[in-house]
């Protein structure tokens, strides 16, 4: 292997050589710089190859022909070579990115850059404490020099602040080093480590100084104002180095020091790290400048890494996999994002909307954000999963909770930023497109996917990038240039093919979910045929969601389940975000979903107790000490997806604002993922008690209240899509209620809801979407009399609401019938009453859909409206046919499930399926008979109506006298305006948006907190130095309090 000193020699030699060049030959100087960086990176790459693929042992390198501790030595192992390669590659790419700046500034700037990279490598390699100090000082000075490459005048101030702080740090460091030397008689880290420093006289104190000084370089809260200023004002390519390479190298130095100090220092690191992580992410919430935001995020990520470093004793062998995964994810994404920010002209977050002029940049941005957030399939995902497992197994739930909370905050501001990029107005000159710089960004994107593959390969859980559904979804990215119709064919084909090939493996329960999600998805995708052109971004997002759903059903281990869950969450987020006004709603959907996902992750982690693989079936065997907690976490997690009351506030906006063909997907299909999870949970864990409370009873209540409140709010909606969205909350409430009954009929009912809700909600969303498309509004009082203009839509809505409201003869009645049968079996009277109450309420809002939209007076401006487009009507008609069929022979699907369920509720309360009649303990239901009876009644009534009205006179619409006045708000005079006002007066108190207010208050509080606390970064360099000193003293006092 090549001696690491050659890296130093190349870096330094290159820098000195540049000094020999005449100032004019700048291109030559630039070429030399690149060659040196590439050479250094090549050496690091050759080591990585040797260590990773050939299993070479770590290399010790001595200088001066003398053994350590008497001379300085280096050590190169897998970690060192990886970090060095990362550092040098980031440096090389930043040099490519800064080409113009470097050439303008001349050879001196290039020499400084080379020395900086060399010094960073030195920090990584060296095993000598004082040598570490020297390299760190080199980094400091080089940083102070490179900050000045920025065109931003303010960088000057930032550089000075940095120098002031590092003076303070180096004073502490030097004093610490010499006292540590005095205690141990050596400067070699390994020699010192062997002596157990803390026991030596003065050793602990000296180590404290050294360690705290190195930590201070890692920008811990609150001593990090200087770092943020540099991020904000420096050249973005330098910030990329400063965030990733400097951060990584210094972190590794801290890691080395910890080997010296021993495990007693780990808790300190953990606390400092996690406090920094949380604080930085809270502050970032209030940030509007992109680079400062990235700075906060960098600070936070390093904090997270520190807290992982603090767990090195727990993590054992997994330490490098986890810490490395997080570090590389942070490094590549942060470097990429900083580079990307160099292409955006303005510094406001909203200015990133300019990326849309190059869709491929949006892809780059999304990749980098996903990498940063640790979403599947990127390394951070595997790392966080493993970390969660270890933390839960070692009773460090508080840390896990804080990490997840911080990650959620991070996701909030990063994806809000993504939302701006997708939805805000773009400035035409906003993107400074330079292909050289763009290539640098893309190399980061490539690296991101490479790392994703590598971490999947190394993971003990299998490689997500080998999952066919995910690959299928990703394959739509390179196919984006195809016309939308062709992609739609591919998508439908893919869904059906996957269903076909997996059909034999589904058990009846999974079959129902799979049928709803896959062929069901294909059916809704028919509506997407109406879109022309390319429809950029739709198919990758939609297929990502479907991939997640497909994988969710096939999941056998907790890891697979969670990965699928995250995938479908992300896919649906991108999908929802496409809606015209959906930016805030998509964000709130995502925040709730991710929050729920994190609860699920925590639940699984607690359940597994450190087992490397945790099959879902093993949930049944979780020790009783944790089982209720696992149950609670998982149940809440799943119920955020089903939008149970309390965590439902994301749903109305997200579903209502989505595109016409997306609403049915996210409503009809996506919600079922939560039900699937609940099924899985209840099948395995069954009834659980927490502090004597039967948890399924709690679920019962939640279900009942969701049903009531969802329906109640729905009746007061003026917006047709919102009405449907609220009704979904109610419907999911029914399903949860059914599940929570924990008996045969209850589950059967829940399953019927799975199918029915899919059908009629998809259908209604499509027809209402079609109407909205034609009329240009979703407000019902603006419509009216559309029955003659849009007859097919009318039929769909009519059939849909009949099915949904549970009146005979359609399948909704079957659902109700099973429901009432099921309810009778419970002892919980009060929730039962509530559920009963919710039923008629549903009818009130459904009635409005028909009455206000299709009947009544036709609006003048809607006189020329045509029927909804063919492709939107087609699936509706298929649904109608299906509803009729399902109403006639519900046994077709449910029978197998019914027998399947016998294994869970042995023998009791099943249904009897003989012929076309279904019999329960309470009575029987014969769909065909009912259908015939209803038909007879209907026909009789209809004929009677015709007879009674035979002399009626047709009145033209305008054959009335108008009063000659024009009200201030004309819509208030419309009969359909605030239709249920009397009910509102009576029941309005139930619809007070308490939960909306609660969550809004939480968000408000966090933002206000961020806005107040960040003022603590006054911008004064001296104050920052005082912060650093204060940080040192506080940690000192806390530790003294801890160990007198």
């Amino acid at each position, binding site marked *: 292997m090549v001696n690491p000193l050659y890296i130093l020699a190349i870096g330094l*030699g290159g820098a*000195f050589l540049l000094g020999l060049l005449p100032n004019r030959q700048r291109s030559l100087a630039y070429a030399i710089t690149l060659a040196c960086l590439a050479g250094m990176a090549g050496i690091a790459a050759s080591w990585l190859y040797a260590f990773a693929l050939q299993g070479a042992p770590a290399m010790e390198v001595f200088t001066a*022909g003398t053994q350590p501790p008497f*001379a300085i030595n280096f050590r190169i192992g897998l970690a060192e070579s990886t970090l060095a390669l990362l550092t040098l590659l980031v440096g090389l790419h930043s040099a490519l990115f800064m080409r113009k700046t470097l050439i303008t500034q001349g050879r001196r700037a290039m020499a400084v850059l080379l020395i900086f990279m060399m010094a960073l490598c030195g920090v990584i390699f060296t095993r000598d404490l004082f040598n570490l100090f020297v390299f760190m000082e080199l980094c400091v*000075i080089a940083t102070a*020099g490179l900050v000045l490459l920025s065109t931003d005048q303010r960088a000057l101030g930032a550089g000075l602040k940095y120098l002031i702080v590092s003076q303070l740090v180096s004073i502490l460091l030097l004093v610490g080093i010499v006292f540590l030397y005095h205690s141990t008689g050596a400067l070699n880290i390994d020699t010192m480590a062997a002596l157990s420093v803390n026991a030596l006289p003065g050793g602990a104190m000296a180590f*404290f100084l050294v360690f705290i000084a190195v930590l201070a370089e890692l920008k811990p809260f609150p001593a990090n104002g200087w770092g943020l200023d540099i991020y904000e004002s420096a050249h973005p390519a330098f910030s990329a180095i400063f965030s990733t390479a400097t951060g990584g190298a210094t972190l590794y130095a801290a890691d080395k020091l910890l080997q010296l100090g021993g495990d007693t220092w780990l808790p300190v690191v953990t606390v400092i790290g996690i406090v920094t992580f949380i604080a930085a992410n809270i502050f970032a919430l209030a940030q509007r400048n992109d680079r400062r935001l990235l700075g906060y995020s960098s600070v936070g990520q390093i904090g997270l890494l520190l807290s992982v470093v603090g767990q090195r004793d727990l993590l054992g062998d997994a330490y490098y996999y986890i810490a490395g995964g997080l570090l590389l994810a942070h490094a590549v994404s942060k470097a990429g994002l900083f580079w990307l920010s160099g292409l955006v002209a303005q510094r406001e977050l909203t200015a990133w909307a300019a990326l849309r002029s190059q869709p491929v940049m949006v892809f780059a941005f999304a990749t980098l954000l996903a990498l940063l957030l640790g979403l599947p399939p990127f390394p951070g995902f595997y790392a966080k999963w493993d970390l969660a497992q270890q933390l839960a197994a070692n009773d460090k739930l508080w840390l896990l909770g804080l990490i997840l909370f911080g990650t959620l905050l991070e996701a909030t501001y990063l994806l809000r930023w993504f939302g701006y990029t997708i939805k805000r107005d773009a400035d035409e000159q906003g993107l400074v497109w330079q292909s050289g710089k763009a290539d640098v960004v893309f190399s980061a994107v490539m690296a991101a996917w490479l790392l994703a593959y590598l971490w999947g390969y190394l993971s003990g859980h299998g490689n997500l990038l080998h999952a066919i559904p995910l690959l299928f979804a990703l394959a739509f990215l390179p196919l984006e240039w195809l016309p939308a119709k062709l992609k739609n064919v591919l998508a439908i084909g893919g869904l059906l093919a996957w269903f076909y090939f997996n059909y034999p493996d589904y058990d009846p329960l999974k079959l129902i979910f799979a049928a709803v999600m896959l062929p069901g998805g294909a059916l809704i995708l028919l509506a997407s045929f109406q879109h022309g052109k390319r429809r950029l971004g739709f198919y990758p997002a939609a297929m990502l969601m479907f991939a997640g759903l497909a994988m969710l059903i096939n999941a056998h281990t907790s890891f697979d389940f969670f990965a699928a869950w995250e995938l479908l969450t992300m896919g649906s987020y991108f999908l929802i975000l496409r809606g015209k006004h959906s930016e805030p709603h998509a964000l709130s959907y995502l925040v709730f979903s991710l929050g729920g996902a994190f609860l699920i992750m925590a639940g699984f982690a607690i359940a597994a107790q450190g087992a490397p693989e945790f099959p879902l079936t093993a949930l049944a065997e979780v020790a009783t000490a944790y089982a209720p907690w696992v149950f609670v976490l998982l149940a809440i997690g799943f119920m955020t997806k089903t939008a149970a009351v309390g965590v439902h506030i994301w749903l109305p906006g997200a579903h209502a604002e989505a595109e016409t063909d997306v609403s049915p997907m996210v409503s009809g299909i996506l919600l079922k993922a939560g039900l699937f999870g609940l099924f899985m949970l209840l099948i395995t864990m069954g009834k659980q008690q927490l502090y004597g409370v039967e948890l399924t009873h709690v679920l019962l209540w939640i279900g009942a209240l969701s049903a009531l409140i969802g329906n109640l709010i729905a009746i007061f909606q003026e917006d047709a899509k919102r009405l449907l969205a609220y009704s979904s909350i109610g419907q999911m409430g029914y399903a949860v209620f059914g599940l929570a009954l924990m008996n045969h009929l209850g589950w059967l009912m829940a399953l019927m809801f799975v199918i029915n809700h899919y059908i009629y909600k998809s259908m209604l969303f499509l027809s209402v979407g079609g109407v909205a498309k034609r009329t240009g509004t979703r407000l019902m009082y603006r419509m009216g009399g559309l029955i003659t203009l849009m007859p097919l839509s009318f039929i769909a809505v009519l059939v849909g609401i009949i099915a949904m409201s549970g009146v005979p003869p359609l399948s909704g009645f079957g659902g109700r019938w099973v429901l009432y049968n099921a309810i009778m079996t419970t002892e919980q009277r009060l929730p039962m009453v509530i559920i009963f109450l919710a039923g008629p309420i549903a009818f009130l809002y459904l009635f409005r859909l028909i009455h206000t939209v299709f009947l009544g007076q036709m609006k003048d401006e809607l006189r020329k409206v045509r029927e909804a487009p063919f492709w939107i009507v087609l699936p509706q008609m298929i649904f109608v046919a299906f509803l009729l069929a399902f109403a006639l022979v519900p046994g077709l699907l449910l029978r197998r499930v019914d027998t399947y369920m016998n294994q869970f509720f042995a023998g009791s309360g099943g249904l009897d399926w003989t012929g076309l009649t279904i019999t329960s303990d309470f009575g029987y239901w014969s769909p065909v008979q009912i259908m015939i009876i209803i038909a007879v009644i209907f026909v009789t009534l209809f004929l009677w109506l015709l007879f009674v009205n035979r002399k009626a006179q047709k009145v033209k619409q305008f054959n009335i006298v108008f009063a000659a006045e024009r009200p201030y708000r004309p819509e208030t005079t419309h009969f359909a305006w605030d239709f249920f006002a009397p009910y509102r007066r009576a029941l309005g108190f139930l619809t007070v948006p308490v939960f909306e207010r609660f969550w809004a208050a939480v968000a408000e509080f966090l933002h206000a907190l961020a806005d107040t606390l960040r003022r603590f970064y006054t911008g004064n360099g001296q104050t920052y130095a*005082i912060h650093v000193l204060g940080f040192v003293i506080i940690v000192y006092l806390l530790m003294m309090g801890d160990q007198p």
Partner: protein
Amino acid sequence: MIRNFAVLLLLLGLAGIFIHLMQGYIPATELNQSAHYYAAHSAEDLGAANIVTAIIVTYRGLDTLGEVTVLFLAATIIGMVLANGHKAQRSLQRQLPPSGELLTTASRLLTPLILLFGAYVFVNGHLTPGGGFQGGAILASAALLLLLTDPLKRFSHRLIAVVESLSGLLFIAIGVLGMVLAGGFLDSRILPTGAFGTLFSAGSIPLIYSLIGLKVGAEFTSMLNNLAETEKS
């Protein structure tokens, strides 16, 4: 002021840390393992009478390389920062009254002497106190003297840069030679250790220290020179 009071309070805390450190400090009566090794071996192995020099140039030569690089870096950055936008103002520089005859003559006379002294200090670094850094500083003081007597005097950037870079490159080259010919990077035993206590002894230590001296001198000069050039009218 509140701020001063807060600083005072924090420094009181720092003083507490220092007192804590001093409490743990037990003056050594014997040399510790590292120092013992240096005392016992450096003269024998490396042939350097000045053990500090042996440590600086050989045992911890990497630190010294870093140290030289710090100066190089500082000089380079100062050059980079100050070079921007000052060239054009050269002609505007104010006319200073000429320095006194005495001063000029004295400086002309003194400069070679100072240079010689500087060279003496770094060449003898392995034998007597002093070495490259001190010698380099002395070299730079000669330049300083010239700058002071004649504020408009400018040194050739080119010359400084060449000295700076060449000595740096040679330093690295010797270091790498140590890796090839002897036990490791910067091993000074690529040259014979010679007779103990003589000028041409201690392997490559005098050579390296001389290079350091030249480089440090050049770097200091370059810093001073660049700062001097900033003078505006």
